């Protein structure tokens, strides 16, 4: 009997069935806790139905869908098998490593392909507003895609480059947005020196503020293990939320403010005002994204970037070479914070209002999904992944299909995170280096930096 259930094929079918059930449930109608058993006792068509199990038409649709997906996946797999030499295509580490070694030789070619992609992408992005003239769409692209990309690029420095999990990322975003409101004199707190400053002034102020908070939070916590950092940042995010939501006299409390002025430019004869039309904002934010891309790419390939990789791969060895791990971690953290603060200015100056509900912890998770989906540590991957995920989310927001409820977004994002970690932990468009690291860690060749032991009592003996 045990052998029967241990049969891998059976297990695979079982798993597929489970996933199917889950999808049916997930896309089913909203449930109702005050009549929890109505699905079992009530009529089938009743929309109080428990778990949406009793919708036969859904079953048919999803069995068909699952069949199609299964078919596509298996045929792709078969093609890959046929394409690669079967002998090389075995799963053990040794060969995975040799494959990645070969892969580096293709790197230069890859680089030029990537540049080509960027050029094409930029051309498309520049032309985009002419393609999609619907203003609500344009607004969505600015607010739900481009700003998210800025944030994802910043978080990628923290999580991707330095390998630190920052779940309170949203707090720095909030700090940026509220600093904008403060500097422009839109909060109950008087602005600095009593002057209602131009929104552009908020940019440096917000960056410095966010960075400072990042450093202050980072110095005590970054000494600790990675999982402690995650939970402390989580708590920090919650505190910032509590603060902005409750300090009526300082931040406007739960109503926030909607008094932030338009972005404007006034230098001698040159005047420009970003008004209600989304297009100018689109180009401005796009420019910011491009700047982030360039700056963070050169950071990745600099001495600083290499030091992060060294610390990530083997902190003990890095330290023995004279690299101060804490300093570099704090710096990654501060750069991430500054990016989020900057994105906060961008958002606040576009939406013209800031309210606490934007800045819940869930938002950090959303950004994390973008980084993970594309591939931690790969700027190219984060941009591409961010475009795919946020583009899809924007589409769902703009014209939601009947099975989708906006409130369920985080259910899907959470599931996506788990699925990614199980099947594609390096992301869909991973950086070669990250992929290599992952294979080496999983093959037991490289140490896992998060695994650094703490208690000296565990160091029993050196051999």
């Amino acid at each position, binding site marked *: 009997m045990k052998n029967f259930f241990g049969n891998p094929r059976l297990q695979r079918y079982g798993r597929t069935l489970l996933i199917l059930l889950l999808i049916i449930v997930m896309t089913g109608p909203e449930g109702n806790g005050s009549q929890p058993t109505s699905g079992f006792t009530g009529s089938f068509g009743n929309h109080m139905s428990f778990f949406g199990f009793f919708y036969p038409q859904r079953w048919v649709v999803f069995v068909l869908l699952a069949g199609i997906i299964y078919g596509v996946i298996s045929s792709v797999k078969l093609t890959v098998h046929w394409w690669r030499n079967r002998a090389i295509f075995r799963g053990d580490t040794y060969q995975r490593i040799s494959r990645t070694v070969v892969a580096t030789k293709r790197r230069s070619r890859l680089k030029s392909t990537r540049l080509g992609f960027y050029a094409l992408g930029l051309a498309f992005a520049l032309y985009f507003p002419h393609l999609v003239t619907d203003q609500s769409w344009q607004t969505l692209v600015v607010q739900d895609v481009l700003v998210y990309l800025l944030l994802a690029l910043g978080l990628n420095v923290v999580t991707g480059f330095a390998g630190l999990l920052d779940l309170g990322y949203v707090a720095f975003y909030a700090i940026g947005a509220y600093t904008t409101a403060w500097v422009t004199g839109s909060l109950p707190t008087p602005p600095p020196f009593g002057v209602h400053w131009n929104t552009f002034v908020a940019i440096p102020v917000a960056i410095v503020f966010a960075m400072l908070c990042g450093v202050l939070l980072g110095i005590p916590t970054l000494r600790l293990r990675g999982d402690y950092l995650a939970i402390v940042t989580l708590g920090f995010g919650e505190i910032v939320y509590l603060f902005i939501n409750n300090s009526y006299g300082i931040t406007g409390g739960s109503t926030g403010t909607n008094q932030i002025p338009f972005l404007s430019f006034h230098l001698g004869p040159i005047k420009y005002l970003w008004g209600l039309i989304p297009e100018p904002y689109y180009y401005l934010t796009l420019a910011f994204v491009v700047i982030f891309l360039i700056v963070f790419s050169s950071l990745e390939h600099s001495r600083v970037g290499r030091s992060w990789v060294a610390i990530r791969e083997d902190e003990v060895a890095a330290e023995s070479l004279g690299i101060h791990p804490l300093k570099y971690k704090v710096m990654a953290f501060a750069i991430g914070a500054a990016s989020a603060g900057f994105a906060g200015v961008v958002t606040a100056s576009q939406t013209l209002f800031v309210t606490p509900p934007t800045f819940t912890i869930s938002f950090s998770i959303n950004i994390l999904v973008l980084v993970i989906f594309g591939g931690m540590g790969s700027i190219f991957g984060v941009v591409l992944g961010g475009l795919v995920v946020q583009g899809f989310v924007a589409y769902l927001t703009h014209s939601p299909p009947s099975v989708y409820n906006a409130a369920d977004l985080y259910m899907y994002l959470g599931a996506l995170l788990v699925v990614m970690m199980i099947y594609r932990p390096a992301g869909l468009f991973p950086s070669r280096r990250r992929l*290599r690291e992952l294979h080496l860690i999983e093959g037991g060749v490289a140490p896992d930096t998060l695994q650094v032991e703490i208690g000296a009592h565990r160091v029993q003996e050196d051999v």
Partner: protein
Amino acid sequence: MGSLIFDVQDVTLRFGGVVSLNNVTLHQNRGEILAIIGPNGAGKTSLFNSLTGVYAPQEGTILFTNSQDKSISVIGKKPFRVSNAGVARTFQASRMFSAMTTFENVKIGAESHRGLGVVGAMLKGPATRRDDRNSDQATKELLEFVGLTSQANTIAASLSYGARRRLEIARGLATKPEVLLLDEPAAGTNPAEKIELAQLIRRVRDEMGVSILLIEHDMKLVMSLAERLYVLNFGSVIASGTPDEIRANPVVIEAYLGSADAGVAEETK
């Protein structure tokens, strides 16, 4: 010559009830190739870790003196500070950055002592570029020195044992140390690689003027390389002297082959 580079006095290191180093006193002269030998579990790596700031012994003093006659006390210093003072090391189970190329590994060593320079790194200013070129140059020279030029773009994890050892030496040298600590550099290498390794270690001392402190199990290598040795057993120094003195010391033979071996040694002669 003659001045001390490492001065270790009465160092004791404990983990719970286990005494890893017991009252260890030893010294290394500037420019010397010194070896520490001893059976498994004798505390050799603990000593290395204490010399580089990884462990902080409960008792004793460790003084490191650089060529400007500036002394620092190692105990209680973080490893990166010890490294910045001029002590480089390799690890027993070599700890390269396995997912990086050989070149990148060494380059990290060459760059590690500079300041942060984030803004420069983001904007790629001329000073940053110049620094980068200098590090590239230094890296190239070091790879040439250890004979890894042809494998500069290989991923470190796929190097042979011998090449990994040389890579670690190059990476350590890139930090411009005054003393290089080698933890079992010959482990896992084949006889031909061992000979090359011995030559390399001697060249490091002769051509770069870096003192060498060595832990090694391969006696042939140690005896041919070291000018002086200390023998550790159960955490204490049980003997010291030149290779010939050590070879003839019955205490050492006993530590290695067991208590009855003085007899065996005679019988085999």
